[in-house]
């Protein structure tokens, strides 16, 4: 790539050390992906369980679909809201690359708006229909499939945009139309890896929602929770396989670095893979335990660590591709101390408010029943 096509860095510099912004990017991306994964995985599982349970509304599959459909609008809301922060940090750190790929994606990038509207309103519609059973099962499943399709397409757009941003050598061909952004190397293995990962998050959401109901001596809910844990274990195992497939699709140079443990990404993805294996095993063990709740929580923590590891490794891979191309003055920082303090104070106050509200809500009444 001719470096003259990479836009110059913003002359204002960055408002904090790059390392701090990278940590914030990784942390907020992991949070965002957790919600997005639960939304997409949840919609996929509602479709799947709805399909299996369409003939028997009192069966486990049908109950699972109802339990999972209800919280999805709120989960999607937080998926969108939490996505703003990584969007902010990526623009500050990698704006020259990020904006260029946005423009090259063009209307496909703007299509995110339409997909979000379809997915979000669809989820509200789906949740209300599953709650009141106001539609035929087949129609409910169609709505759920539409929501899953919308969020699957959103995931594909985001992955494509990210990949295009780290492949400046392809920019001019994509601009000229001689190459499709969808033929970028590793796109499909990467998307498949993410997609399978969302299955884990959707399954864990199902397990926890059901366990919460089971706390009120709801035997059917306990049974559904066990199904959720089994699914989490299976998706976790499948994700490890999809991860291995993705690993072998990565550029050889980076793969060698990973496998020879000579790169921070090796630690990040090593930890992620270890936690994914352990989390999957524990989910499977929890599914047959007499009291699955403690193991389910440990498994959730391990899957969360997997997410953080994956997010960290993702940043390392980004740097592997573009570090040498980042304009020399891009990360000159002009620290803004008092605004950072303001952000810190607001964050602490915000977390306190969130914790208090969630606490009073959770303690206020027993969970609703079907």
């Amino acid at each position, binding site marked *: 790539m*001719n470096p*003259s*096509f990479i*836009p*110059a860095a*913003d002359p*204002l510099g*960055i*408002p*904090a050390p790059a390392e701090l912004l990278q940590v914030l990017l990784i942390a907020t991306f992991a949070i965002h992906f957790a919600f997005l994964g639960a939304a997409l995985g949840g919609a996929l599982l509602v479709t799947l369980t709805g399909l299996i349970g369409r003939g028997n509304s009192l069966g486990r599959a049908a109950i699972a679909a109802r339990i999972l459909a209800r919280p999805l609008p*709120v989960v999607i*809301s*937080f998926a*969108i*809201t*939490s*996505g*703003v*922060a990584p969007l*902010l*940090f990526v*623009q*500050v750190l990698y*704006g020259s690359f*990020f*904006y*260029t790929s*946005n*423009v*090259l994606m*063009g209307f496909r*990038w*703007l299509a*995110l*708006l339409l997909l*979000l*509207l379809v997915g*979000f*309103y669809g989820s*509200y519609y789906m949740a209300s229909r599953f709650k009141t059973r106001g539609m035929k099962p087949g129609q409910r499943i169609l709505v759920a499939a539409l929501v899953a399709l919308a969020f699957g397409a959103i995931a594909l757009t985001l992955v494509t945009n990210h990949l295009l941003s780290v492949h400046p050598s392809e920019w*001019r*061909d994509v601009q*000229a139309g*001689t190459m499709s952004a969808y033929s970028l190397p590793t796109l499909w293995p990467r998307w498949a890896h993410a997609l399978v990962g969302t299955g884990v998050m959707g399954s864990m959401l199902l397990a926890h929602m059901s366990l919460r109901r089971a706390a009120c001596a709801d035997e059917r809910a306990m049974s559904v929770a066990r199904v959720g844990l089994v699914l989490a274990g299976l998706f976790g195992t499948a994700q490890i396989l999809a991860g291995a497939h993705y690993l072998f699709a990565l550029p050889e140079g980076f793969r060698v670095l990973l496998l020879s443990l000579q790169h921070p990404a090796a630690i990040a993805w090593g930890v992620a893979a270890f936690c994914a294996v352990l989390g999957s095993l524990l989910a499977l063990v929890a599914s047959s335990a007499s009291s699955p709740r403690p193991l389910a929580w440990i498994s959730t923590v391990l899957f969360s660590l997997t997410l953080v590891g994956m997010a960290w490794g993702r940043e390392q891979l980004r740097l592997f591709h573009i570090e040498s191309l980042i304009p020399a003055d891009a990360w000159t920082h002009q620290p*803004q101390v*008092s*605004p950072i303090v*303001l*952000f810190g104070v*607001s*964050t602490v106050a*915000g977390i306190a*408010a*969130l914790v208090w*509200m*969630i606490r*009073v*809500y959770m303690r*206020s*009444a027993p969970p609703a029943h079907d």
Partner: protein
Amino acid sequence: MQFPHFFVPRAGGGLLIAAVAIFHIMIAHFAVGTGLFNAVSETVARRRGDTALREFLRTHTRFLILLSFVAGAVSGVGIWLTTAIVSPSAISTLIHQFMWGWATEWVFFIVEIAAGYVYYYGWDRLDPRTHEIVGWIYAASAWLSLFVINGILTFMLTPGAWLSEHDFWLGFFNPTMLPSLLIRTVSCVSLAAIFAVIIASVDKKLDRDERGRIVRYAGLWLMSMVLMLPLSLWYFVMVPAKSRDLVFGGAVPMTMFFVFGLIASTILGLYAWFGVVRRSHDVNLPTALTMLAVSAIATGSLEFVREGIRKPFVISGYMYSNSILKTDVPELNRTGILAKARWVVPQGADPRTATPQDRGRWVFDAECAQCHTMDGFNAMRPLVKGWSRPLIDMSLSRLDEMKYFMPPFVGSDAERRDLGVYLDMLDGVENVPPRPESPPQKEPPQRRRQP
């Protein structure tokens, strides 16, 4: 200029941003206003023992969730997506300068969303006092979110002392920050009141007296619209003199939209008293929807003026509306703009060997296409129709002097001549390759005028 250009057929990128922004502003203002409206009203309802009002607030909140939390959140993301694609340099500047402000706003936003859900889903679960506190948390976080965004938006028109210091707080607490914050707060509570009237008009659970009482109560909130007149005058006193001149007669469209906005706001404020508060039983759905339409005209008009008087800048005194930094102009005049705007030159082409009209077209793409389309909104072809070549050349050389809203031509003399050739050819289309957004010409080419 440094980024590839995104062509929006017919409409142009600016119109795309404006459409998404106005839609978002209406919903976001409603969300902030509803926070204040609901928190105050619930407190009032509890003290008065007004169960009808409290029940009505539940319906109002459901509407908030369905409209604001979905369409508002998505259109908010939409502003990020469209600005990043249409005007990446401008959004980059704002983000690099105000990243911590935006990050703080994000925290308020998360709290706002969480509080909104707990408020709605906890209606029958939380005790009244706790529920009321959650309502106030929602109101405070939503308004603080507006507070932060308002500081960043007003910075674009009146950066004030930031231009010399590049200091966060100087940019944030800029000259129009406070009047704009008050204007937006009034707009927020007014929209919440209008939606309250709309919802009361269709809420079948309310009997006639309850509906009348709630409509009258909402009308009292809507009366705040009369404050728009003094607040707007204060705002326009604080804008730069050149911008103020545009509103007060210098540019007819700006004056007209300003007057439209103020008249619409004042009429709404007065109607709130005479039509809504005093004759609350007569207010029905069509009346309420008409109020919403007038409010949209007021908001849209004043937002149009706010955007318009910033020209020729996107960030006053710092970055022109075509994303060229004011400080870069001397250098670009020396080296030529095509030396920097590499993306506009097609793959395999070389500006040194290209024809003048091709170079002119690339200069157009680098410098003009961010605001002008070829045949659609703010179109170039009809704009230069009938212009002689000397007139085009003269206009380009004195662009910012002849038209107050235009940035100066930036680039070498040769590039200016090339752009002149290209613009001149637009009238006689036979030699001009179709622009990406232009359909192939079917009309036989007209005979070109001689200069």
